[in-house]
């Protein structure tokens, strides 16, 4: 007590002796509530699976320029997440239980206002939304009015939600095909175990008006594709286990398939492979394609990457190899790139470290360690 008092006096005396005015006391602070700055292309949404606590998954919003977390959206148990086309709304399809991990199950679609990170609406869903990894299990229609939610019970279908009506308006049976890959205003494609694409056309009321099964466009047995579809200028791009690129044009009523090209040389093929949770990213303006790769055999398609390989997507040739310090940060689970003119490359590692690189040069900018428990997916609206 005496020592403390003496110390305080000494500090003041020292200030006085130095000719300084005694500083005024700090003013009282007001307990405030932070607001979000204007949205930036360098924002990135980090999906935390919360592997050890699966009822408590979440999204973190990270500002890569400010190098700080901006907020969090709670997303429940095995959630699917999608951003509206205008970027203003996050849609979350998830399951809750009336007693935490038990009791009555309720599936809901929750809409969050991305400018306040508050939930603005809830629509109760049939209790069979797909509990799986957060890739394409929920999507907005092209005009942002409908939301499609993949179901798996294990019967396969998707629920159609009309956001204007805030109601479920229909359910489309997908005949064993899975996921929702939206295109145009009212089309939805799904991946089938035969290597085909099922495309269903919906009408304005959200009901099926027609469906069409494509020819097989990849070999399920010889070289399956990862389910991650990367948005291109006219549709999606898929990567196979062996690193072949499958372009799918979804701009017309029926899908068209581009010639397949290989990211791996004959010598590399089957020895180096893409792997992890989210394996490929595309910067659309420049056509640059980014893969996380590792050395491994069949069955290693979920092994994390220790290098990023960069391709000129138009010329189909590799332009760079960027090794990652996986000893320091652990292997790469997920990759994503911002779509602006000064693009950033985001990598999430097995230990949930977020690495930020200059996507044009590969220059390492910084690492944010431990951004969650098992943050293995990245969304970049």
């Amino acid at each position: 007590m005496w020592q403390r008092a003496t110390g305080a006096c000494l500090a003041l005396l020292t200030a006085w002796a130095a000719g300084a005015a005694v500083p005024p006391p700090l003013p009282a602070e007001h307990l405030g509530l932070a607001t979000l700055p204007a949205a930036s292309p360098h924002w990135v949404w980090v999906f935390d699976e919360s592997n050890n606590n699966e009822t408590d998954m979440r999204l973190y919003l990270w500002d890569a320029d400010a190098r700080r977390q901006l907020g969090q959206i709670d997303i429940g148990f095995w959630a699917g997440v999608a951003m509206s086309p205008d970027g203003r709304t996050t849609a979350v399809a998830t399951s809750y239980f009336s007693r935490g991990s038990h009791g009555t199950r309720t599936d809901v679609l929750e809409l969050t206002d991305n400018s306040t990170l508050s939930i603005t609406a809830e629509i109760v869903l049939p209790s069979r939304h797909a509990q799986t990894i957060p890739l394409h299990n929920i999507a907005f229609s092209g005009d942002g009015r409908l939301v499609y939610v993949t179901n798996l019970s294990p019967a396969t279908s998707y629920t159609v939600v009309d956001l204007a009506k805030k109601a479920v308006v229909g359910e489309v049976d997908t005949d064993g095909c899975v996921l929702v890959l939206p295109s145009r205003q009212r089309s939805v494609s799904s991946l089938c175990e035969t290597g085909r694409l099922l495309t269903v056309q919906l009408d304005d009321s959200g009901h099926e008006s027609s469906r069409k099964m494509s020819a097989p466009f990849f070999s399920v047995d010889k070289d399956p594709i990862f389910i991650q579809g990367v948005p291109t200028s006219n549709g999606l791009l898929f990567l196979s286990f062996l690193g072949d690129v499958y372009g799918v044009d979804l701009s017309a009523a029926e899908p068209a398939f581009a010639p397949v090209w290989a990211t791996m040389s004959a010598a590399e093929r089957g020895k180096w492979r893409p792997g992890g949770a989210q394996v490929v990213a595309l910067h659309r303006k420049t056509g640059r394609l980014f893969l996380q790769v590792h050395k491994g055999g069949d069955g290693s398609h979920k092994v994390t990457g220790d290098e990023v390989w960069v391709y000129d997507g138009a010329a189909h040739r590799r332009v760079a190899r960027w090794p990652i310090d996986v000893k320091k940060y652990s292997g790469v689970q997920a990759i994503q790139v911002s779509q602006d003119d000064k693009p950033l490359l985001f990598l999430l590692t097995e230990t949930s470290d977020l690495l930020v690189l200059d996507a044009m040069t590969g220059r390492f900018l910084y690492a944010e360690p431990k951004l969650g428990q098992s943050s293995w997916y990245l969304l970049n609206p």
Partner: protein
Amino acid sequence: MQQRLDHWAERVSRGVARRTSRRGFLSAFGRTLTGVALLPLLPVMRGSQALAAEPAAKAASTDPNACEYWKYCAIDGFLCGCCGGSSSTCPPGTQQSPITWIGTCHNPADGRDYIMSYNDCCGKTSCGSCFCNRNEGERPMYRMSLNNDVNWCMANDNPNYHCSVSVVLGVAGK
């Protein structure tokens, strides 16, 4: 053996049938289950699995709580042996999943390949111990019965995922 598998397949199918009668299920899933009950007719599964021979050294572990144990060649989750169960037994107070994904694992002790059923144990939150992710012959979600990325507790009354077991169904092929 065949009788037992039939019984298992029947139990599984009945369990699922109670919950769904959609053609989606029958086309994507029922076929594979039928396949399991008719072991010699499993060309796709044998084919996809045959490529997975590489990590044979790792698979030599004889500790049923080690991720390298031979039975876990396509598991993705917490090993139930670390959670109060065993490699083929769910922990007390959980419920077994009636539906499942399938793998084929090589047992170095007798040189045989075995068909495995990877059941989830359900009804409590994630066990959190002995996380193990191996993917020999594992395939993406459009090959549902070979996929370990979906919650196989989905059809349980309580679909919370707790841990995973690996149950020997029988010798693969011959």
